[in-house]
């Protein structure tokens, strides 16, 4: 019984005897214990908090963070003020890293499957045993190239270890992303000749024209962009104007001064129509115009606003006005990505969009596209390797033919992300055990891990070493360093159980198999230090010291190393002829265009196990925890669909999902939008069997040129199922604030002060 006045009063109200009892019980014994540990490390002092710099592990482009550690436990994450990417700011996702660290469903020892695949019966085994089993099975494979290592795109020194592991072992490395970025990357190469993503100087731009990319919530490096957006809105300069072109009213669209609805897949046409107006009226750089069109080889006349207007859904008049504004407010910046690049003509769309920067002279200029220099390391690639959807379709074929002997997965969840129609899961499992060995390096159960034969738990990012060359970078050389800020949470389980660093696990496997990875040192920390030595020897940048030890400590303390003077020095970003003008997008069939979008919290599903992210409300709908379908309010009324009605979305490929209707006035009557991230078939208490997986019903459409997944090209029919469920949303938790005509919550002004 707890000694509180509240309980005391409760009991007193009940009976006097209760009150006596209360006195007699006092404080529970366990609460009275003061532990004197064996040794007291500095950060274990009760009440003393220490902030350690490291890197966030939840986002695609890791942000520099500082973690508050008290008594050996991580308590709070905040942005690292010094780190060039996010400069002290952070997203909801970074914060939730703490829940990943202390998650009740974290896997605390290597697991060996004992039941049938996917049955969920496991037995804990020791690391020695696990690695020996794996080495034995991999050793027996004759053709090592039939072993596939699927990871998330890994950069920095972990990327180096993974590449080295794959190449020395002779196995295939296939980085996987749910939302294929092949088109975006290729577009940077085709339009600007850049391998790494450039930085977009949003803060320095006066006019911002964005297509599809929801850069304020999940696309690219959202915290960096959002920080710049604050400057763009209310900085030292005149308030910028932002026009956003997208089929859905996304967070970014909602924040723009003007949202332009475009029919899915026609973004490139709109961009070229804008280009056409700029060239025709001679508003832009005429030499760039000549270069882009190959001196007239590409006929921009085909994209005259009038010709584009009908099918894109953007009026000719509006296109002309935007073109005028875009060319008339230097520096102007065009950004494209997300759904704009997720079509059969995705690459061509993006090429057209990014070519606009050439026309207005923003390529390589402040307020425009700032190229990033290569990494300051000799053996770390400029950008992590990537594969496309087509590669994965190919792998599916190979698997079903029994040509893949083992699939090793880490940070990738293809069973979740691959459209069901590809038959990926069937190919993986098959009646004949197509893939004899599936190993997953994972901290949590997910759809793919649940099917594995062997699960090797990974250290959490806050317990691990690592480095990151930001991609996109800040426009100069920067390296983030990850250090363990707390001792491994499962340390108490002993050296044979518990989790390990992924890199160390790979190095251990290679060692057992007697493959020399040719890395510096025995552990990942050694590899990292060897990398840091390279930085130390440059003798420039944010951390300088007389000896390496001091340099290393300084770099850890600051969270990394950067050199603001080391900017891009490659060939200038000269305009090239638009290689492939966008053709018509090939779309699925159905009454509604389906726009899937990554949720702001759980994104493409990687954060679904974290309750804070599950509970994070979607900015537009304020909903959470479930999968909902954004549908136009009027259209819904016509169809007699109300909020919470369970509706079935069926694609022309026959696959369907069920989700809750959320009618609102901000979406086109011809579009439905569904958040990604839910509907996991494998997982824990917060994510398993919750909501629906929109990726699963997608048509197998891909970019005709690059093979990237055209995830925004599916169309669906919808039908009511008759079911109803409350949409968990925050809206109206607090009743509408009492207002009348004179009282307004958000006040507007036409003029900046």
């Amino acid at each position, binding site marked *: 019984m707890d000694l509180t006045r*509240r309980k005391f009063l409760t009991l007193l109200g009940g009976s006097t005897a209760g009150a006596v009892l209360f006195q007699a019980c006092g404080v529970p014994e366990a609460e009275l214990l003061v532990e004197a540990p064996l040794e007291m490390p500095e950060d274990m002092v009760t*009440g003393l908090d220490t902030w350690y710099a490291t890197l966030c592990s939840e986002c695609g482009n890791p942000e520099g963070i500082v973690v508050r550690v*008290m008594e050996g*436990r991580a*308590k*709070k994450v*905040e*942005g690292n003020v010094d780190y060039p990417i996010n400069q002290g*700011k*952070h997203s*909801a996702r970074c*914060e939730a890293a703490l*829940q990943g660290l*202390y998650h*009740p469903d*974290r896997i605390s020892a290597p697991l060996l499957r004992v039941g049938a695949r996917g049955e969920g019966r496991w037995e804990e085994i020791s690391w020695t045993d696990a690695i020996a089993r794996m080495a034995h099975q991999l050793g027996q494979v004759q053709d090592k190239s039939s072993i596939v290592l699927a990871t998330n795109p890994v950069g920095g020194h972990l990327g180096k270890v993974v590449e080295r592991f794959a190449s020395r072992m002779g196995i295939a490395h296939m980085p996987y992303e749910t939302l294929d970025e092949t088109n975006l990357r290729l577009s940077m190469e085709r339009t600007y000749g850049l391998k790494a993503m450039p930085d977009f100087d949003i803060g320095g731009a006066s006019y911002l024209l964005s297509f599809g990319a929801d850069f304020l919530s999940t696309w690219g490096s*959202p*915290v960096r962009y*959002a*920080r710049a957006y*604050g400057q763009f*809105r209310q900085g030292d300069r005149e*308030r910028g*104007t932002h026009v956003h072109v997208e089929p859905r009213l996304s*967070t970014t669209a*909602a*924040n723009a*001064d003007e*949202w332009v609805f475009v029919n899915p897949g026609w973004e490139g046409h709109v961009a070229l129509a804008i280009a056409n107006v700029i060239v025709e009226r001679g508003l832009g750089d005429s030499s760039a115009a000549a270069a882009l069109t190959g001196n007239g080889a590409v006929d921009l006349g085909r994209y005259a606003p009038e010709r584009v207007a009908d099918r894109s859904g953007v009026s000719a008049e509006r296109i002309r006005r935007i073109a005028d504004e875009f060319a008339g407010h230097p520096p102007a910046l065009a950004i494209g990505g997300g759904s704009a690049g997720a079509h059969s003509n995705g690459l061509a769309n993006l090429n057209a969009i990014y070519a606009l920067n050439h026309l207005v002279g923003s390529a390589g200029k402040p307020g425009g596209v700032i190229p990033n220099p290569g990494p300051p390391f000799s053996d770390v690639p400029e950008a992590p390797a990537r594969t496309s959807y087509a590669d994965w379709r190919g792998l599916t074929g190979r698997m079903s033919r029994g040509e893949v002997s083992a699939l090793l997965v880490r940070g990738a969840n293809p069973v979740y992300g691959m459209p069901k129609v590809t038959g990926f899961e069937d190919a993986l499992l098959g009646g004949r055990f197509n893939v004899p060995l599936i190993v997953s390096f994972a901290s949590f159960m997910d759809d793919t891990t649940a099917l594995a034969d062997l699960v090797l738990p990974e250290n959490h990012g806050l317990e691990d070493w690592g480095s990151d060359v930001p991609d996109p970078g800040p426009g100069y050389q920067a390296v983030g360093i990850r250090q363990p800020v707390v001792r491994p*949470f499962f340390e108490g389980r002993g050296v044979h159980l518990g989790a390990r660093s992924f890199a160390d696990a790979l190095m251990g496997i290679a060692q057992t198999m007697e493959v020399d990875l040719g890395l510096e040192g025995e552990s990942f920390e050694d590899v990292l230090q060897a990398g840091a030595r390279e930085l130390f020897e440059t003798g420039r940048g944010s951390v300088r010291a007389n000896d390496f030890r001091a340099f290393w400590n300084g770099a850890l303390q600051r969270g990394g190393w950067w050199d603001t003077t080391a900017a891009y020095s490659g060939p200038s970003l000269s305009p090239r002829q638009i290689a492939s003008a966008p053709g018509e997008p090939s779309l699925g069939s159905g009454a509604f265009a389906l726009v899937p979008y990554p949720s702001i919290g759980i994104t493409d599903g990687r954060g679904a196990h974290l309750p804070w992210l599950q*509970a*994070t*409300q979607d*900015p537009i709908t304020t909903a*959470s*925890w479930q999968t909902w379908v954004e549908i*136009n*309010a*009027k259209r819904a009324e016509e169809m007699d669909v109300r909020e919470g009605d369970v509706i079935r979305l069926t694609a022309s490929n026959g696959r369907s999902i069920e989700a809750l209707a959320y009618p609102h*006035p*901000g979406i*086109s009557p011809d579009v439905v939008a569904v958040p990604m991230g839910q509907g996991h078939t494998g997982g824990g208490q917060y994510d398993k069997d919750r909501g629906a997986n929109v990726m699963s019903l997608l048509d197998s459409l891909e970019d005709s040129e690059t093979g990237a997944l055209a995830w925004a090209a599916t169309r669906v029919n919808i039908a009511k199922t008759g079911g109803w469920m409350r949409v*968990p*949303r*925050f809206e*109206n*938790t*607090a009743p509408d604030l*009492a207002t009348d005509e004179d*009282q*307004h*919550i*958000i*006040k*507007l*002004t*036409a*003029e*900046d*002060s």
Partner: protein
Amino acid sequence: MAGEKWGMVIDVDKCIGCQACVVACQAENNIPINTEDLYNQRRAVQWIRIERYWEGEFPDVKARFIPVLCQHCSDAPCEPVCPVFATYHNPEGLNVQVYNRCIGTRFCANNCPYHVRFFNFWEPSWPESLKNQLNPDVTVRSRGIMEKCTFCIQRIRRSTRDAKAEGRGVEDGARELNPACVNACPTDTLFFGDLNDPDSKVARMSAEETGEHGRGYHMLEELGTEPNVLYLKKVDKNAKEASHA
């Protein structure tokens, strides 16, 4: 401690609705996990929340965001209705909730026009391992108690204490002083500081923006609650000094 008046300035023109402040607040202040059930019961707790307002209909539609948190009113409607003085105005301009006085009448929540007070209908619970994350500087509120934004008073206390020990004043805008939401906000929408210090950022902003040409306004100003949170109007070039609820 005398003479401070803590306040906030919120530039609505910068808020993008990204929820970073909301989760930062949850992490800092030991707010229980807002489960699906809690949302459905309309009992989710968010000391700071982002409200979304619709304006118009497709295609001429706008969705606008505004962060709403306790306004720390100088003339707070929640204070006089508390029968046990569990909520009152402290000398630093904070509207405080004293947990061990609160008996859970919920009168204050009913009387708050901003709906920023939250009642603990249930004993807060976390899975055992997640308790490792809890902030030892903040009381976990038990069942039957009202709670709300404190401007992260634990940070104010700690930073003033540290400053005192080092024989200096608290630096305006220092990260150890700022509430968790302010530090997180990616666009710098939120500013926090001492309104009584004429050199502080918030005092300067208030002075600049409350004039005739400024963008400053108080939420539901007409009610005369005299909030210590100043909002700056959203700029919309197409709006003719319009506003909307």
